[in-house]
């Protein structure tokens, strides 16, 4: 055999041995156990301390107030949303207590009016609504029904009220078009107000033969954009807009 072959074989042998030694030294211990990563990393991630206890922990000791809240409008608002992380309190109930803001600081974070919030979510103008009084003076945070039934729909539907204020339709009260049971004011999601369903409803004022004041604009219901309903084009809270 030519002398190049054993020399080459020796070079390869050195490289292979070197590779095996390097792998033994450099690859960490649990690497590759489960996948292409150090399995011990999962253990150190799992060992991270918890700051939030979870509402089941609160309910174990504070059962009556948890049940009161679970039957109220705040049933989806878990304890630590307002009371902050409570794992330290669960571990040491007598020494570490969760806190809560008792002035107006906390409630407007969710309930201040913001146009990007979904329609119908209870919102107030936090500057005008009972200025400077603590929210909990009137609203029990664990059962936050309004203390008095709101007189006006605009108490919650401020955006609609401010829009209709620039329109002729401000002369109509909300109940002219929407049959709103009183229960809706106290528990909005339990019953919703109704809406008109047919063109003839708008015709009670706007049809050519309607018995309404003369200044109201008229259209011929039979020919005007059949078969669409009126509010597909005319926003009823601001119908003058084009």
């Amino acid at each position, binding site marked *: *055999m*030519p002398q190049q*072959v054993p020399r080459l*074989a020796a070079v*390869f*042998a050195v490289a*292979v*041995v070197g*590779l*095996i030694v390097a*792998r*033994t030294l450099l*690859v*960490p*211990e*649990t*690497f*590759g*156990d*489960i*996948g*292409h*990563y*150090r*399995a011990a*990393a*999962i253990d*150190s*991630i*799992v*060992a*991270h*301390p*918890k*700051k*939030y206890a*979870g*509402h089941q922990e609160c309910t174990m000791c504070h059962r009556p107030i948890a049940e009161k809240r679970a039957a109220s409008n*705040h049933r*989806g*608002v*878990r304890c*630590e*949303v307002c009371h*902050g*992380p409570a794992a330290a309190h669960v571990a040491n109930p007598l020494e570490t207590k969760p806190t809560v803001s008792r002035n107006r600081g906390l409630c407007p*974070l*969710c309930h201040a009016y*913001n*146009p*990007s*919030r*979904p329609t119908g*979510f209870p919102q107030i103008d936090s500057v005008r609504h009972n200025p400077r009084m603590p929210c909990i003076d009137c609203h029990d945070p664990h059962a936050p029904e309004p203390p008095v039934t709101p007189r006006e729909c605009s108490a919650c539907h401020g955006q609609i009220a401010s829009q209709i204020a620039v329109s002729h339709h401000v002369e109509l009260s909300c109940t002219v078009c929407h049959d709103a049971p009183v229960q809706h004011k106290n528990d909005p999601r339990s019953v919703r107000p109704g809406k008109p369903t047919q063109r003839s409803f708008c015709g009670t004022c706007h049809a050519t033969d309607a018995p309404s004041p003369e200044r109201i604009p008229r259209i011929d219901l039979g020919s005007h954009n059949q078969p669409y309903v009126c509010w597909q084009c005319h926003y009823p809270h601001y119908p003058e807009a084009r």
Partner: protein
Amino acid sequence: MPETPGTIERDAEQPDRASVDRREFLRDVLGACGAAAPVLWWGTISVAPAMGQERQDSYDPTDHLYGMGIDVRKCIGCARCVVACKIENDVPDEPHFFNTWIERYVIRRDGEVEVDSPNGGIDGFPPIEGVGSVRRTFFVPKLCNHCDNPPCVQVCPVGATFITQDGVVLVDDDYCIGCRYCIQACPYGARYIHPEKHVAAKCTFCYHRLVDGLVPACVEVCPTGARIFGEVEHRATPLARFLQFNDVQVLKPHLNTKPKAYYANLDGEVR
């Protein structure tokens, strides 16, 4: 020309050239390789640890596959989730490090889309200018999507980020070299370099809570139930009902990352 093909005759003028038979040469070399093969095999096997070992405690990661549902129509942008995540996971307080954050979309009547996320939403959002020209506006919570085909895992040069058997993408703090390739690779902007540890960091689905049967901190504190946590493949989980009764989309489906954050009522303008 030599008399027998395959041989080189000794040349009188070049006496040092040995004569080599081609067949002999091949036989010798292949024989040497065959002899060396068991040694090489033993070398790699003895060094590589055994695959498929399971964790020793009672939590079995192969029994779960986690995902999150987000109902955009329920989000009120209060950012309690952002605050809770920062507390639970020791995320730095500086404004641009978030495991999860809230974006506000403002879509004008002329088609312009404005997106903002001031400090993730923690300090509230500035009032919208020209509210009258707004067609739609809403909040979108965002987080690591824990993709089933994660680009971040694919590009990590050392194997410091990985997807667990229960579908959670995690980062090995002790092994990451901080090369930032995964930060570039994530199409959702979910990863960042931790300013003190100098390694990649991101949402972990609060994995340290999942193994104890709790839900992530952001899901625990969401007051409207806009975040729903559960298992993608099981039937008795809140996520199953969410996926059944909602029109669900994912972010950037064209990138084939197979994200496991499912958005209901997602507007087409959300990127």
